[in-house]
């Protein structure tokens, strides 16, 4: 079958199971866009290529399938890079396709030429420049294979314009062999036995569950193991949803803004079972004092992550689901009543400090909004958050019960992620109720995608948490820079009117008693809806482990805050 390169591109995508792509056309990718009309592909036009990249990422995270974004050469490609790096740091299976100047012009600084494979080398799992149409199908086949396999990640394929225009026999390889692509190893029986033995002897075991649980589809096995061995579970930010928040063994999020009982438990544990997480600095705090009393078992698909930050006693390099399936039969039923009681003590102490328990004197606090959103949606919505204070409050107060119900930029911490990623998530799971939770800062970075929401007729629900500051930076300035608020006060538009400009239902809430009603109304309307919540300006996220401090040295919410308000 003779096809042009442009036709091959879509033929390959369709054969990989792609039905939706996100992108933005331009000169060097025009042949591909022209050919697209002949293929069963839904193309979502973003308003900026960064948005297209986050959409592909959100699509991948919501569905587990490969997300695809397309852009033109030069500025089109460079605009993708923030989204590519975001996908890289959170191991999101994505394929990025960029047009490139004709191969004869490569290296001449031609119009809209930039070295895209060079630029994206450190932020992709792999990338390739295609200068020969006969290499195109194989390269794309490899790209999807690489993006999906092992620890997933972004792959970029840069396709010269003349390659798109050239014609050749289309040969789609059923299988491709990549000598450097190493499939996950099977867990070794001896390692599983050692892990089981450590667990059988532990008095204070704790499971640390990360993104890997979600990605490998191991949430159910995790629950069974935790229940069988009576082992509490703490979650990373990207692991939220991997274990039901309502489960009695769930300790919530760990780390810098983690739930205090989770952090206390890590520091007190005598055994950590780290499942699909990588001991990121935001999770560990000071490595020297981190979980000093605990033996560590690390189950991780990426061998380069094992013992990178934290030395481990047992390393199981394998797909998590295979590892847990192997571990379950060799573990014994256990009870840890003493350990559970100790944890319960921390829980009660933390509960008393909780902001929701404190008199609010009519103030609207972001945690109120998140709490009410959780109640309104029964914890069943897919929530896509931006980056900053609201992100941490969402992680603390929206109680996720299932995997893939929280989509957030963890590793790179990319502001502007939420709205476009939510567009991707909604397209991946149209049946799901999808909420954007963003701050006034991050939302303004990509708010142009409101037009995409409307053009694609997506019934997204959007909560903008407006405190008039770049809140998390302001919090650091308050705590560590003597309240010198350099460049953090932030002017914003009236977001409800802004929504109206896109014909999106918009409203503004500034009182606690209005929250539930506004949420109910937003959920009731057929199309998209936006609520701006004007919340307390100088509220802080607690607890907080200052960067590099000991994990147990949390700054806690002062209990006198309640007194202040009363007075």
């Amino acid at each position, binding site marked *: 079958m003779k096809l042009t390169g442009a036709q091959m591109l879509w033929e390959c995508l369709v054969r990989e199971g792609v039905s939706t792509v996100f992108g933005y056309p331009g000169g060097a990718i025009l042949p591909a866009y022209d050919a697209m009309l002949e293929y069963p592909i839904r193309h979502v036009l973003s308003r900026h290529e960064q948005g297209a990249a986050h959409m592909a990422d959100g699509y991948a995270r919501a569905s587990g399938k490969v997300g695809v974004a397309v852009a033109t050469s030069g500025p089109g490609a460079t605009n993708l890079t923030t989204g590519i790096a975001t996908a890289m740091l959170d191991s999101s299976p994505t394929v990025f396709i960029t047009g490139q100047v004709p191969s004869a012009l490569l290296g001449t600084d031609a119009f809209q030429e930039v070295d895209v494979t060079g630029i994206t*080398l450190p932020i992709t799992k792999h990338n390739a*420049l295609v200068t020969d149409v006969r290499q195109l199908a194989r390269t794309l086949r490899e790209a999807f294979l*690489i993006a999906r396999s092992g620890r997933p990640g972004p792959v970029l394929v840069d396709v010269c314009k003349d390659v798109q225009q050239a014609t050749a026999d289309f040969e789609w390889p059923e299988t491709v062999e990549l*000598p*450097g*692509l190493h499939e996950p190893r099977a867990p070794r029986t001896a390692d599983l036995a050692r892990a089981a033995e450590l667990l059988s002897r532990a008095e204070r075991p704790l499971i640390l569950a990360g993104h890997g649980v979600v990605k490998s589809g191991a949430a159910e096995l995790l629950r069974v193991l935790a229940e069988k061995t009576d082992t509490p579970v703490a979650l990373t930010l990207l692991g939220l949803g991997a274990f039901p928040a309502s489960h009695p063994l769930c300790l919530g999020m760990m780390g810098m803004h983690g739930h205090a009982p989770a952090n206390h438990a890590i520091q007190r544990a005598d055994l950590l079972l780290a499942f699909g997480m990588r001991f990121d600095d935001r999770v560990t705090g000071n490595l020297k004092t981190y979980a000093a009393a605990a033996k560590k078992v690390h189950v991780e698909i990426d061998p380069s992550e094992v*013992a990178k930050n934290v030395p481990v006693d047992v390393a199981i390099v394998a797909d998590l689901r295979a590892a847990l399936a192997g571990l379950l039969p060799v573990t014994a039923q256990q009870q840890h009543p003493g350990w559970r009681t100790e944890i319960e003590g921390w829980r009660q102490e933390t509960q008393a400090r909780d902001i929701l328990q404190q008199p609010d004197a009519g103030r609207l606090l972001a945690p109120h909004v998140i709490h009410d959103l959780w109640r309104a949606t029964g914890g069943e919505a897919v929530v896509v958050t931006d980056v900053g204070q609201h992100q941490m409050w969402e992680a603390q107060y929206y109680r996720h019960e299932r995997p893939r119900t929280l989509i957030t930029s963890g590793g790179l911490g990319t502001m502007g992620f939420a709205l476009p990623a939510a567009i991707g998530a909604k397209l991946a799971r149209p049946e799901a109720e999808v909420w954007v939770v963003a701050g006034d800062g991050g939302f303004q970075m990509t708010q142009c995608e409101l037009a995409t929401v409307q053009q694609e007729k997506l019934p997204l629900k959007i909560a903008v948490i407006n405190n008039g500051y770049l809140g998390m930076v302001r919090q650091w300035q308050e705590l560590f820079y003597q309240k010198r608020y350099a460049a953090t006060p932030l002017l914003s538009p009236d977001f409800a009117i802004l929504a109206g400009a896109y014909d999106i239902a918009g409203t503004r809430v500034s009182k606690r008693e209005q929250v539930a009603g506004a949420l109910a109304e937003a959920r009731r309307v057929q199309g998209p809806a936006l609520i701006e919540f004007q919340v307390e300006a100088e509220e802080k996220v607690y607890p907080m482990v200052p960067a590099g401090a000991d994990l147990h040295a949390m700054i806690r919410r002062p209990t006198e805050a309640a007194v202040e308000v009363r007075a």
Partner: protein
Amino acid sequence: MRHTLVARVQDQPGVLNRVASLFRRRAFNIESLTVGGSESPDFSRMTIVVDTARVPARIVEESLRKLIPVAEVSDVTHLPTVERDLALIRVRCAAGQRSELNELAQIFRGRIVDVATDSVVVEVTGDLEKVDGLLDLLRPRGILEMVRTGKVAMLRGVATADADADREATAKQGA
């Protein structure tokens, strides 16, 4: 300490760039890196000597293995290997000193490959220590210019190890 990694990599454009980029990004410290042909036209072989004071060799090895064009990596540091480094050394040398210098070079199985009025170029091949040994002796005479390839390494076969080791031992005694 220094670790020696040998990698078999696909012979594609940009492979060296990927390896170099990885080392730069992860702040792995390269002591030397050589790359060249292998027994297969589709693959090249790299010998990388890395300073592992800050990052364990295993992390370097596993990070390299993650690169798609890298088919195999082995850490041969503690395995029996044949190692070679080639150096070209331009040494200050008056006409009357040439034969003396020639003798010195021969002890290290080196030879003079270029002669000018006031200098010669010595070529020497051997393991790092041997080349370093000759350099130490030449330094007082005035090294005008020097270039080294960096180490290439290959695992020894089981049965052939002895002959070469004996020769090495002889050369070291000579030094």
